[in-house]
């Protein structure tokens, strides 16, 4: 990418894209190995955290005797809320820390800051998709029953959650290069989303005067989409893909512009 900016002869665009894809692929592989202990089974550890949270919440719901909306069993209700939320928040966090966590790799000129961000977003997307497939697969095995209303809508919801997290992460990542305060503020800013993104409730179940402000939160829309796709008894009438896409568009443009601006400020040591 830097060669495109500094090279007087514009390189073949397709070849450039292919080379960048190779770099992202290499980074994602490397990250998989370093993060999960260099052992192939280590990837399973990625499953442990969300599984524990889900089982805990499942137990809490049962003990508290809280009812889930009609047609949703507690386990599926929690998984369809928690996985897209986690996909968003983990993508945002991982991408936000992509430069600070991999600074040494920028030593290799083919590796550009954006590649680090993309590799992490891809890896988070793959991880949480796997988490979802395995949890729902296990659930189906236990129940001996498997029903999905509309798989495409489920995938679309995940895709939006992933891009939303990655583009928010990119903005945080670049701002973090300018000011450390942004890095410190990121956690406190994002954490409340856990409580207001529909992990524990649906838009339908909210009173209208609360539903309206709650739907300003784009993460809530991605959860709604996933649930609308998964449950035949629940519809997507409160979710707006366009609204989420608008957020993604604005965050991505701001993030990419910031990346150009902070590129010269990134220090290797």
């Amino acid at each position, binding site marked *: 990418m830097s*060669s495109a900016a500094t090279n007087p002869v514009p390189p073949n665009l397709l070849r450039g894209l292919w080379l960048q894809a*190779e*770099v992202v692929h*290499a980074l994602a592989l490397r990250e998989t190995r*370093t993060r999960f202990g*260099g052992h192939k089974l280590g990837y399973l550890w990625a499953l442990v955290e969300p599984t524990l949270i889900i089982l805990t919440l499942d137990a809490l719901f049962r003990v508290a005797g809280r009812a889930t909306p009609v047609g949703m069993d507690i386990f599926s209700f929690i998984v369809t809320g928690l996985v897209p939320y986690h996909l968003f928040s983990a993508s945002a966090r991982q991408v936000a820390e992509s430069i600070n966590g991999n600074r040494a*790799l920028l030593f*290799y000129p083919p590796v550009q800051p954006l590649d680090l961000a993309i590799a992490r977003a891809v890896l988070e997307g793959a991880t949480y998709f796997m988490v979802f497939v395995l949890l729902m697969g296990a659930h189906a095995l236990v129940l001996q029953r498997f029903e999905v209303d509309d798989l495409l809508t489920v995938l679309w919801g995940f895709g939006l959650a992933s891009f939303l997290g990655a583009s928010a992460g990119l903005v945080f990542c670049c701002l973090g290069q300018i000011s450390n305060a942004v890095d410190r503020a990121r956690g406190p800013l994002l954490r409340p989303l856990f409580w207001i993104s529909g992990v524990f409730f649906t838009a339908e179940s909210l009173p209208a005067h609360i539903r309206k402000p709650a739907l300003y939160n784009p993460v809530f829309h991605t959860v709604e989409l996933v649930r609308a796709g998964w449950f035949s008894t629940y519809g997507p009438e409160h979710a707006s893909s366009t609204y989420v896409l608008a957020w993604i568009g604005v965050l991505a443009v701001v993030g990419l512009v910031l990346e150009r601006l902070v590129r010269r400020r990134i*220090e*290797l040591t």
Partner: protein
Amino acid sequence: MIELEHVTKTYRTTKGPHVVLDDVSLRFHAGEGIGVLGRNGAGKSTLLRIIGGAEAPTSGRVRRTSRVSWPIGFAGAFHGSLSGEANCRFVARIYAQDIDRVVDETRAFAEIGEYFFMPVRTYSSGMRARLAFGLSMAIDFDVYLIDEITAVGDKPFRKKCGEALEERRARAGLVLVSHDLAMIRRHCTRCLVVSRGALSDYDDVDEALKVYDQSLSA
């Protein structure tokens, strides 16, 4: 051809901006052997990172029409928990090289035995240098940027590096940061002295060494 135009590099510190390179310009073609001299902290490694493109200058332009290596030093950008082999595979991938060939050639050059398959954090600095140098030689660059790699190596390794560089010099250029003056004399025909943010450019290596020597004792 590599060209630096009015390059300034400033690092932010708690005590305000620190200028490492102040409006330097440099132009060389890919086949040249260039030695870089300067005291510790003069900005030699920064210069290499900017030539290679690992860091962007604060202001000014860098143009490259040749394939330039990363700055090859003993510290390197190896991941400590990955094996030497896994690190080689990663670098081969990002440079779109034949992975198995790069791994085999690096292993043969580095001569670190079974350590090649052990985490890099278990390596001594000499072993890291062997891995880094072998890996860079397994990839075809037009210009190799070498940052004091021989300083930590033993005598056989230094000899091997010298021979590999000699062989490579026939078709590739070299920017060599070193305090080993004999090595600079052997591989370079041009010399840069980095001092107080400025570059002095000498076509005569012996003259550069003389000037540098005097500046050290002054």
